[in-house]
Structures are given as structure tokens and as C-alpha cells.
């Protein structure tokens, strides 16, 4: 029985559907045929889809979202333990948590006690609307444009221009730093301190920002220090 492979629960803001293990395409088809069989029930519904640990790319999710929207079903959020899926969802503007309205405590509290080795590496331009949140360090090879947001439990290193918002030490780590080849952020946060950088004078050069006496301070970066 196909229907039994899909678990459906009513939640506060819509319907929560948990996909069981198995091939994504099979599970997706099972879900769609279940919806087709119960169109009246699903009409205008908002769905939260829990895909478990599947790694799904944007086209998988956007394909499903479009197919669902053809049936007048709105894909509201995708829950997953896979970082790839979470990022794909965010790129498409889908929620990745059950309820965004109540700022619930972080499921995995950002841990400031780092071993110094956990980091996420992004080789791309981060554009307006992109938001990257990671409990370790964030390393970007590319530009971070205005409207993009980086939130790291640890340090943020940008081999490129920082023009968006960067928040290092988001779990309270006051020793976190932000480095960039051109440090011109919309806003810079380290731990719980927030600062706005003055307009740049002269040519951009590599800088490092850190907390000094409770103030966000930026200094020219020089090798060997």
C-alpha cells in the first residue's frame, strides 16, 4: 500500500508530511498520487515536508513545488537534516523550520566551544537574499553582496568583498573574527556587539575585525601577525 508509506499529521499552520526511506522519485510519486486521490482535502493546503536526511538539490525541490502549486497546494517548508537540502530550500525561499513566527531556541545551540576545525566552504557569489547559518566557521571564496547574510558560531573568512551582513561568534564567542579582502559590510556583528562600518576611503585592502574592549574594531591585515 502506497498510502501507508507517507505519514501525514495536522500541525498548527498546515500539514506535516514525513517521507519514509526509499528513492526520492518513488516517494515523491507516492506523495503526489496520494494528494491526487485526496484533492479536496489538500486543496489550498500549506505543506511542511520532512525529507529526513536526503540530499536534495534546488531543481528537485522547485520541481516538486511547481507540481504541487499546479494542484493548488503550497509547499511552505522543507525539513531536513541534510545541509545540502537546507541550503537548496533557502535558495528557493522555503522555510526550513517548523514555525518561524515564534523564535524558538536553536535546535542545535550554536556552540562556541569549537575544536577549530569545523567549517563550511562556499565557492560562489552570495547574493541578496542568501542566508548562510553555520555553527562552525564560514569560509567564502567570492563576494558577499548587500542583502546577503552570514551567521557563524565561529569565524568568518571572506576571500572577496564583504558588503552584506556578517555575524561571527553568534553563540557568544567574543574571540571570533571577520576577515575580508574588502571589509565594507552593511553591518558587522561579533558575539552580541553590532557595528556599522564607516564609508571606505581610498583603495580597499584586506582587513580583520575583532572585539577590543567590547568594541568591534577593524585593522589592516598584515601577514605574520
Amino acid at each position, binding site marked *: 500500500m502506497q498510502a501507508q508509506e507517507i505519514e501525514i499529521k495536522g500541525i498548527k499552520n498546515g500539514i506535516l508530511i514525513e517521507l519514509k526511506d526509499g528513492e526520492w522519485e518513488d516517494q515523491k510519486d507516492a506523495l503526489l498520487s496520494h494528494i491526487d486521490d485526496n484533492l479536496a482535502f489538500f486543496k489550498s493546503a500549506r505543506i511542511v515536508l520532512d525529507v529526513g536526511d536526503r540530499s536534495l*538539490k*534546488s*531543481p528537485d525541490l*522547485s520541481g516538486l513545488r*511547481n*507540481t504541487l*502549486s*499546479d494542484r493548488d497546494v503550497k509547499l511552505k517548508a522543507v525539513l531536513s537534516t541534510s545541509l545540502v537540502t537546507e541550503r*537548496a530550500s533557502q*535558495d*528557493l*525561499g522555503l522555510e526550513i523550520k517548523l514555525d518561524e513566527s515564534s523564535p524558538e531556541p536553536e535546535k542545535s545551540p550554536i556552540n562556541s566551544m569549537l575544536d577549530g576545525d569545523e567549517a563550511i566552504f562556499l565557492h560562489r*557569489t552570495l*547574493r*541578496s*537574499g*542568501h542566508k548562510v547559518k553555520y555553527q562552525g566557521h564560514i569560509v567564502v571564496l567570492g*563576494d558577499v*553582496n*548587500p*542583502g546577503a547574510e552570514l551567521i557563524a558560531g565561529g569565524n568568518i573568512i571572506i576571500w572577496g568583498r564583504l*558588503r552584506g551582513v556578517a555575524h561571527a561568534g553568534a553563540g557568544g564567542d567574543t574571540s571570533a573574527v571577520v576577515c575580508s579582502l574588502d571589509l565594507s559590510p552593511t553591518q558587522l556583528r561579533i558575539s552580541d556587539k553590532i557595528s556599522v562600518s564607516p564609508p571606505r576611503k581610498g583603495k580597499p585592502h584586506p582587513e580583520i575585525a575583532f572585539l577590543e574592549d567590547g568594541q568591534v574594531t577593524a585593522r589592516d591585515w598584515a601577514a605574520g601577525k
Partner: protein
Amino acid sequence: MSAKVITITSGKGGVGKTTATANIGAALATMGQRVACIDADIGLRNLDVVLGLENRIVYDLVDAVEGRCRLSQAMIKDKHIPDLYLIPSAQTRDKTAVSPSDMIRICDELRPDLDWVIVDSPAGIERGFKNAIAPADEVIVITNPEVSAVRDADRIIGIVEAEEKGTPKLLINRLNPEMVKQNNMLSADDVVDLLAIHLLGIVPEDKAVLISTNQGTPIALDNKSLAGQAYQNIARRLMGEEIPLLDLDKGSGFFNRISSVFGSGD
């Protein structure tokens, strides 16, 4: 032969998507290409007005999607250029009347008989935008040299990339070289520097565009205006020709050009 589907989008409203659609379509058609322009802005249609075809509409895109007419009945032939067609949007419906898969189906139906299908996207990143980019082989993002428009363009580029439509190409519209010189406007370099995508062309600010839009005659048919030349060059670049960017500093006035000719002769 199979047509290439190009979607023109911007995020922000009022930057010139519809004007660009009409003019790129017209410029391609004057080069002997068979072109259909689709107005995907359902509920706020105006590509028909810009092309001067408003009074010829009998059936629209939604009629074709919902099977009230054959697709060819919704294709309105342009009054100036042979082989330029418009598929108008419906004025009395909204974006939900069409789905992304409808758009893909319509464009696939058009492909065998045409060289280009140009889709005019509505502003925003909602359903209408999703409809417009669904059938696209290539996306052109249009922006003005203005911080808010560039910010929206950046967001749109991110979404188009996430939808795996490839990296879009950039069209900068309404650049005013005088204002750039006085440091009162972002330069084309500033915009390209931030967005970091391929620049397809720059269209200068030109009063003639507004006049032609109101008259329903695309500026691309006017060889004398700089904006018209810019659109013709964009069409030729889409055809694969290597055309250098226009020198906008010369200005569009007749006397300006005369004086620069004399100037270089000295």
C-alpha cells in the same frame, strides 16, 4: 528549427522589462527572425500597448492555456514588422490562471515555427515570475543604474541560478552618461562589478524611448536614436555577433555627433 526562449526579468518594477521585450523582439524581427513576445504579466498587461496592438486583441494567453482558442489565434501579428507576434496576457485574471508547466507547454508548442520566444516577466519573485522563467533557455536580467534596482537584480540572479537556469545576462537600462560623469549615478562598471555577470548591453536614457512607447512603435525601429541602436546591437549580440558597446559619451544630438566628427578630423 527550434526557437530559443528568453525571459526578461528584473525583480524591481518600472526598470523597463516590457520596453526591452518589445524592442529586443522588434530588433530581432527586423533582422528577419521569426519572433513571438509573450506578456506573462497576467492582470497587468501592457506589452500590447507598447507594441501598439491593444485594439487587435481577441484571444489572450489565458484563453490559449485554458483551451478556449488555438494558440495561433492568440498570436497577434505586428503592424510594422512581418514575423513579429505578440501573445497578450489577460487583463481580467490573475497570475494563478497560468502555471509554470502551462508556460513550458505553450513555449514548446511555439518552438518549431519560430526562432525566438521572448517572455516579459512581471515584477517580483512570486508566482508570475516563476511562470515566466519556467520555460526559459536563457534569462536576461534588466536593471537601472540605481542602488535599489541593482539590489533586486542581485536577488533575482541568485534565484535564477538556484532554479538551474544558468547564469543570466545583464542589460543596464536608462544609463545617463552625464550623471555618471558628475558622480551622481552608478556607472555601468559599478553595476557589473557588483553583479558579476555577463553584460549584454547598455541602453542610454533617451526621451525618444518614452515617446515611442506611448506611440506604440518600438524605438528599435529608429536608427537615429542611441537607444534604438543599443537595442539593435543587443539583438545582434543575441544572434552571436561580437558588437562593441556603444560609445554613449557622444550624446544623441545631431550637433554633438557632427562636432565630434570635426573634432577627430583636426
